């Protein structure tokens, strides 16, 4: 059994803001005028020791989400309205990284990959980390509606602490059900399976 989107491989990416906003937009922290967090992401030299799959571009959630305090929804913008959270388009990345080139050589090398992807129109093929078992519908929007836009960590763990994203929850049925039972929300089969 496959879901149709699997069959045609349509793991389409994100619906982002229009290019103008990205080009002139700055990280949210800077926009709101709040001081950047005191957290300074460490330089990681040995990436082999990090948990989680190695991605084509060493994208660091800890730098973007913690050090720079970019909210999750800046990139995963459809999570509040759609079942799909949305993988940001290269355009979104490039919106900032057109100007931000990176401070260390290793950062610069990774950011160059983004710029190349934009220039060559070849988006990176991210390795999927959070993969639900087959044949489950997970409407992100309803969960975010209840848990709030910071509720991502409930299932994804505190991605802000992760230089490289790895799976924290088992995402098995028992795990889902456990939460549904605890919160006294329905656990009717056809809420997720159809």
């Amino acid at each position, binding site marked *: 059994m496959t879901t149709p989107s699997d069959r045609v491989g349509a793991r389409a990416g994100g619906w982002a803001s229009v290019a103008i906003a990205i080009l002139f937009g700055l990280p949210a922290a800077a926009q709101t005028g709040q001081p950047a967090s005191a957290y300074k992401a460490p330089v990681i030299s040995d990436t082999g020791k990090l948990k989680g799959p190695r991605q084509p571009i060493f994208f660091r959630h800890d730098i973007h989400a913690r050090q720079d305090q970019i909210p999750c929804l800046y990139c995963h913008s459809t999570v509040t309205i759609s079942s799909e959270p949305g993988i940001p388009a290269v355009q979104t990345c490039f919106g900032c990284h057109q100007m931000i080139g990176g401070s260390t050589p290793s950062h610069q090398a990774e950011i160059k990959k983004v710029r190349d992807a934009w220039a060559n129109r070849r988006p990176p093929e991210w390795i999927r980390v959070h993969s639900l078992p087959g044949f489950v519908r997970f409407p992100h929007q309803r969960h975010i509606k209840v848990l709030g836009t910071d509720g991502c960590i409930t299932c994804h763990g505190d991605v802000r602490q992760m230089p490289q994203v790895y799976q924290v929850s*088992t995402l*098995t*049925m*028992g*795990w889902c*059900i456990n939460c549904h039972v605890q919160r006294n929300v329905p656990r009717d089969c056809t809420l997720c399976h159809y």
Partner: protein
Amino acid sequence: MAEPQSSRVSYDFVTRAIARTLGTPGKGYFALLATAVALLGVGIVCLLFLLRYGLGLAGYSHPVYWAVYITCFVFWVGIAHSGTLISAILFLFRSGWRTAVYRTAEAMTVFAVMTAGLFPLIHIGRQWYFYWLIPYPNERGLWPNFKSPLIWDEFAIGTYFTVSTVFLILGLIPDIAAVRDVATGWRKKLYAICAIGWRGTNEQWRHFTRGYLYLAALATPLVLSVHSVVSWDFAMALVPGWHATLFAPYFVAGAIYSGVAMVITLLVPIRKLFHLEELITVHHFENLAKLCLLTGLIVSMSYCTENFVAWFGGNPHEREAFWYRAFGPFWWASWTMNICNGLLPWLLWSKKVRTNILGLFVVSIFVNVGMWFERFVIIVVSLAGEPFERFANATYNPTWADWGIMAGSFGWFFMWFLLFVKTFPAVSISEVKEVLPAPQRGKVAAS
């Protein structure tokens, strides 16, 4: 009780005669075994195709969702019944004649249940998930549905298999000890292990006889329940032709009927091949034939009742279903069933037929065929005739996948059976001795 055996039959004779059956097999035996294994091979190949491509290879159609596989399942479960009947129920009734035939019947039971148990696994759509029917703790937090007759089936068949197996093994222990004490070579070692230290002491017999009695007492309701539960697979559904309170006794009688016929079918060649004419006599066959006649009459009665109720009940769906059975496109199956099961047993009223081994053999084969068709008619014809939604009814044509796996099931059954009769005593040594007069010296005190 009448003296069934000739006078030269003594304890020693019994031991020797039965131990002799365990000797090196002849060419005929190997030919039979090879045939059985070949049939099994055919079944396995068909099954592999089925697993790879799906159940579509079998002849199912839209309303006929159960067909030859479930027919075979019920057929084999039915076969399994006479074994326990003869070994447990007749044991409780203290019928002496059972002793010569019960081991074969019991072995047949175990192997028939083994065969039957395969079919529900083969026939489900996703065979690799069969274990979802077992209540085991899992990460999904899901349990099976105990309201489903299929789960009852699982428990009934599982229990039946377990109980009939231990019953067979328990009965075998004193006999294995007996052959251990006369055997030589590797067989002696094998039997020494299998006999687990049996010596026939008064202590052992004391616990054994008591335990055996209780097992028989437990197996008796079990044997009646198992085919009742199988019948409820159908009776619990609302398909006209299935939905009948009559089904439990009807199925149990049918099961014993077919089982006894199968015992006759198996015993005739065994008696011949193993030269057991003096242990298994015409008297035994006659008794089996009488049992066959009795259950056959119950089955015929059930047929009549079924049709009468369909007519008398006035339910148009029921009437339709039974009309379709008799005169629809599957009339040949229904009439095969009626003639083989309803008319043929009347031959057994005649003592001539009952005491004619060859005649009995032929009748028993017809009964087996008839009983297979009974299940086919109940399952396939009731579904194909679909009287609720006239628009949805359709016909059914079995394919090679149906026949192949059915042949495989016969191969599987006979393979085990043939291996058994050459490995373990196929006639109970100790129980045959039980019905012999014990050696007495006469006036002991005087000497």
